[in-house]
C-alpha cells in the first residue's frame, strides 16, 4: 500500500487543482490585481475561474459553477475579509463542488478536507498523536499528527469541512477558537499554532435536514452564509444536466449514446415543475413532494435511464427508461407524495401534447 499524491492516470477522480491546473496557471500569469496575502489569485480572478470566462491572454476558462454571479462574489469577498464561509443548500446544489474549486483557486490545494459524520472525533479538527512515538519519546512535534485544519493554519491555506451539521456539537465548537482567535493551542507541547495569512475555512451544510446538529450561535456567527439555490432557469438546468451526464457517461465508460436532449428536457421539466410548485408556463400551481428533487438527482435519473437503455433497451433513451427513476425520486413518502404525483399526472402530464408515452409509462411504473 502506498499513499502519496503522485498523479496516476488510473485514479477515478482527479483533484480540481490537477484537473484544471492549466487554467489556474494562465489565470495567475495574467492576474495583475491585488491578491490578499497568501492567495494564489486575486478575488476577481477566482470569480472568473469559477464562473468561466477568459484569462488575460485569451485562454478560455470553463465555467465550474453555472448560476448567480452575485453569490460567488459574496463567497469570494467573504473569504477575502477573513470570515469563514458557510455554503448552505439542499442536497445536490453543488456545495461541495464550489468549495473544492474555491479552495483550489485560492490556495492551489483542495485536499485539506474534514468529512463531517456523526463519528468524527475532535482529533479530526485539532490534532492527534502517533502513539508509538508518543510512548517512545514523549510529547514532541514529531509525535503530533496534524489535522487538515491544523495543516491549513500552519501553511496558510483553505481548509474545508464537509457536512458541518453532521459533526457532533462538541466537535463543531472546537472550531470556535480556530475561527475567532486564529490560533490552536497545543498545551502538551506548551505552545500553539498560529494561523498564517491565507488561512480560512469553507464549510458546507445541508439546510434540508435541520436539527441534525444545529450550529451553536457562537459558531454560527463566525460564518458568512451563502445559500446555493437550485438552478434558476430551465435552459440553465438542462445545460447542467447534459454536461454532467456526458462527463459521467465518459467516466462510467458507457457506450456513446446519442444525447437524448428531448428526454433530458422532460426529466428536468418534471423536476423543476414539482420542485417549484408551478408549471413552466406559469399557469398552474402544483403541490411539491417531500423530496428535494435536486439537479444531482435529475442527473442520476438520466444516467440511470441511459444505463437501462444501453444494457436492456435498444440504446435509445425513452420515456420508459426514465419514468421509473422519476417516480422513485418524487415519491419518497408513500402517502403524501403519492397524492402529489397522481395530481401532477392527472392535471398536467395527461393533458400535455406529446407526453402521452410518458403518461402511460409513469402510470405503469
Amino acid at each position: 500500500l502506498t499513499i502519496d499524491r503522485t498523479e496516476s492516470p488510473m485514479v477515478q477522480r482527479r483533484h480540481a487543482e490537477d484537473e484544471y491546473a492549466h487554467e489556474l496557471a494562465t489565470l495567475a500569469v495574467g492576474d495583475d490585481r491585488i491578491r490578499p496575502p497568501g492567495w494564489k489569485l486575486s478575488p476577481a480572478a477566482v470569480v472568473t475561474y469559477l464562473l468561466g470566462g477568459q484569462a488575460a491572454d485569451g485562454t478560455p476558462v470553463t465555467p465550474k459553477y453555472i448560476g448567480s454571479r452575485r453569490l460567488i462574489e459574496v463567497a469570494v469577498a467573504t473569504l477575502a475579509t477573513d470570515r469563514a464561509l458557510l455554503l448552505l443548500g439542499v442536497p445536490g446544489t453543488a456545495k461541495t463542488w464550489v468549495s473544492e474549486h474555491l479552495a483550489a483557486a485560492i490556495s492551489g490545494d483542495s485536499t485539506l478536507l474534514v468529512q463531517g459524520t456523526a463519528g468524527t472525533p475532535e482529533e479530526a479538527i485539532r490534532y492527534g498523536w502517533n502513539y508509538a512515538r508518543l510512548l517512545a519519546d514523549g510529547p514532541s512535534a514529531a509525535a503530533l499528527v496534524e489535522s487538515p485544519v491544523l495543516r491549513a493554519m500552519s501553511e496558510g491555506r483553505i481548509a474545508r469541512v464537509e457536512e458541518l451539521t453532521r459533526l457532533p456539537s462538541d466537535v463543531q465548537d472546537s472550531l470556535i477558537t480556530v475561527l475567532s482567535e486564529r490560533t490552536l493551542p497545543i498545551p502538551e507541547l506548551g505552545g500553539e499554532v498560529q494561523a498564517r495569512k491565507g488561512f480560512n475555512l469553507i464549510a458546507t451544510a445541508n439546510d434540508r435536514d435541520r436539527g441534525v446538529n444545529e450550529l451553536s450561535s457562537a459558531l454560527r456567527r463566525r460564518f458568512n452564509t451563502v445559500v446555493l439555490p437550485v438552478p434558476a432557469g430551465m435552459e440553465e438546468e438542462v445545460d447542467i444536466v447534459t454536461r454532467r451526464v456526458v462527463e459521467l457517461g465518459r467516466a462510467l465508460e458507457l457506450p456513446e449514446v446519442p444525447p437524448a436532449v428531448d428526454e433530458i428536457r422532460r426529466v428536468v421539466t418534471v423536476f423543476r415543475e414539482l420542485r417549484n410548485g408551478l408549471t413552466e408556463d406559469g399557469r398552474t400551481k402544483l403541490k411539491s413532494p417531500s423530496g428535494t428533487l435536486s439537479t444531482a438527482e435529475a442527473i442520476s435519473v438520466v444516467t440511470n435511464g441511459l444505463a437501462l437503455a444501453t444494457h436492456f433497451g435498444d440504446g435509445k433513451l425513452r420515456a420508459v427508461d426514465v419514468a421509473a427513476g422519476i417516480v422513485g425520486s418524487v415519491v419518497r413518502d408513500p402517502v403524501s407524495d403519492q397524492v402529489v404525483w397522481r395530481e401532477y399526472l392527472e392535471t398536467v402530464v395527461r393533458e400535455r401534447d406529446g407526453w402521452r408515452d410518458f403518461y402511460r409509462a409513469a402510470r405503469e411504473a
Partner: protein
Amino acid sequence: MSAANGRTPDPILLGVRHHGPGSARAVRRALSAYQPDVVLIEGPPEADPLVPLAGDEDMRAPVALLAYPAAGDPRKQAAFWPFAEFSPEWQALRWAAAHEVPVKFVDLPAAVHLAAEDAPRRESGVRSDPVGALATAAGYDDPERWWEDVVEHRFDRPGAADELAAALGPFLAIGEAMAEVRAHTPAPPEAERVEEERREAAMRVGLRTALRGYDRVAVVCGAWHVPALTAPLSTAAADAAVLRGLPKVKVAMTWVPWTHARLATGQGYGAGVRSPGWYHHLFVTLQDPVPRWLVRAAAVLRRDGVPVSSAHVIEAARLADALATMRGRPLPGLVEVTDAALAVLCEGDPLRLELIQRRLVVGERLGRVPQRTPGVPIARDVAAAQRRLRLPPQPLPREMDLDLRREIDLERSRLLHRLGVLGVNWGMALAHRRGRGTFWESWRLAWQPEFAVDLVAASAYGTTVRDAATARVAEQAAAAASLAEVTALVERCLLAELPEGLPTVLRALDERMALDHDVAHLMDALPALARTLRYGDVRRTDLPALRHVTDGLITRIWAGLPAAVGGLDDAAAAGMRDRIDAVHAAVALLDQPDLTARWHDTLAALSTRDDVHGLLAGRLNRLMLDVGLLDVEAARGRMSLILTTGVPVARAAAWIEGFLTGDGLLLVHDERLLRLVDGWLTGIPPEAFVEALPLLRRTFSEYPAPQRRQIGERAVRLGSSDDGRPAGAEQPDIDDERADLVVPTVRALLGRRV
C-alpha cells in the same frame, strides 16, 4: 440674452431625477443659495390652489396629488402625482412654503390629461429616468450612488468660494448631459412624441408667464426636459399653436395620503421606485449611510425575534465594503448592502431578507393630509348613492330588512357589501331571520365619523365604490394565505356583485387550491362554485374561467380523496360524509358526463376499502346504489358482509347509519334489505345493543313519520311471515274449551271480533 438686456436674469433650471434623494438634496441647496421669487414645479397647474396645504404642519409625505373628473363618467381613470419626503419636487414645495415663496405648477393641465381617450400615457425607457440611464451606462446599478459619486463628490468642493456656483454646478452638468442624451436618443412612437411636445410647450408657457411677473425664477423639472426649457426658447406663438384646441374635461384635485409600498408599485411621476425606504434613508442620513442602514436592518430583525448582534453588523459592513471593492465601486450601494445583509445578518435565510425588503427597502411609511383637505371622489360617490337609495348616514344603529327581489333593496345590499369589502363597516349583516326565504337580508346600520378616513384610504383603490371594491378584492385575493379566505372572497364577490373582480379571485383560488393539502377545504369550496356555474346567478360572470377552476378543483378532489378518507374518527367521518354528499350533489348539478364518470370511479374505488370509517363506507355504497353503479343485489351482498359477526357492532351500526341516513323508502320497498337489517338487529348481543342504539336512533329518527310507520308495519309483517308461520305449522296442544273461556275477555280488551 435677457440678462444682458438688464431686464430679468435667466431662470435657474433644476433638472432632477424624480424621487431621487440626491436630486432632492441638491434642489434644497440650490434654492437656498439662489433665493428665488417664484418656484415652478413640473405638475398639473390645477394643483396651484392646493400648494398652501403642502406647508401645513399636519402634512406628512408620502402624499399624492389626485386629479379626477369633477363630473361625468366616474369610471374614467384618476391620475396621481405622488411625492415622497425624498422627492425633489416635494422638497421644493416645502422650501417654498417655509419661505413663503409662491409655487406654480407647470405642465399639461390634468384636464387635458384626463380627457385623453386612453389611459394617461407615461414616459418610458430613458425618458422616464435619464439620470438612471446615465448611471447604468457608467456601470452603476444604483443611480443614487452614481449621483453621489459622480455628481455630488465632483462639485462639492469644501470651502468653495461661491456657494451659488457650487450649488448650481451639478444642474448645469446634468443639463449639458441631457442635451447630449436627447440628441442621441431615437424618436419615440408618434403618440409619445406628440405628448412630450405638448407637455414641454405647456411648461414653456408657464415659464414665460412667470418670467413676466418675477425676477428670480427657479424651475424644478425632470432632467429630461431641461434642454427644452433652456434659452433661447421657441416662440410663444409656436407653443400656443401646439396647445390650441386640446380636448379638456372639468377636473377636481386634492391631496391624498400615499404609502411607500404604493410608490414601489409605480404610478405617476417616473416609474415605480423599487426602494423608497432606501432612498428615504439616503436622504435623511447624511453620515455613514451604510453602517446606519445595517443597524436599522438589525433592529428590524431583532424586532421579529431574530438575534442579531453588533458583531454581525460590523461583519456585514466589512463584507459590503469588500464586495464594493471587488466589484470596482468606490462605495457600497443597495446591492452590496443587500448581499451583505443576506450573508451575515440573515444567515442566508431569504425569508429574513424578505423582512428587510418589506420593512426597510420598501418601507411602511404612511402619509397624512390635513383635515381641511378637499374631499375625495369615492366619498362623493358614496354620498350620491346614499341619496339615490334613500339610505342616509345616521350614527344611531338601526336594523333594516332588505327584500332582494326589489331593485332598490338589491342595490342597497350591494352598496353595503361593497363598502364592507373596502373596510367601511357601515352595515353589519345579521343572521337570517327564521322562516324567511333566501331573498331576505337583515342589516344593522350605524354610520361612524371615522368612515370618512376609511374612504380616503379606499380612494387609492378607485374613484367609485364599485371600482375600489373590485381593486380591493383583487388585492385581498393576491394576499390571501389560505383557500378558505379565497373561497370567502368568491362569496363576497358574488354578494357584492363585482364581476370584474371575479377573474382575479378565481385565479387566486386556482393557485391556492393547488397548494392546499387538505382535501376537505377543496371539497368545501366546490358547491358554491357549482351552483354559480349551473344557474349563472351572476351577470357577466366569466364562465369559462369558472369552469376551468371548477374542473381543476374536482380533479384535485378525486386525486386527494383516497388519502383523505382513511383513518378518520367519528366526528371527522361525519364531516367528511357531509362533504362527500355535497360534492356528489355538485357533480350531479354540473351534469358533465366525463366529470360524473370519474367521480363515480372514485366512489367505487373507495367504497370497498376496509380502512374507511363505517359511516363513510355505508354512505359511499348508498350513493352508488342511488346512481345505479351498484344494483340492489350487489348492495345486499355488501350489506350482508358488513352485518356479519366478524365485524364489530359499532362499525356495522355506523355503516347502517351511513347507508340509510336521509331516506327510508329504501327499506320500505326492499324487503330483503329490511330483513337483513332486522336479522342483524335482533342478533346483536345485549351489551353491544346499548352501544349501537344511539346510532340507530339517530338514523331512524330522521325519517319522516309516515316512513317510520311504514317501516314498522313492514317489520311486523316480517315477523309474522318469519316467525308466525312456523308457529302456525307446529300447533302446540291447545285446550279449545279452556281457550274459549278467555276469548270474551280478549275480545273486550281489543274491542274487536276475533
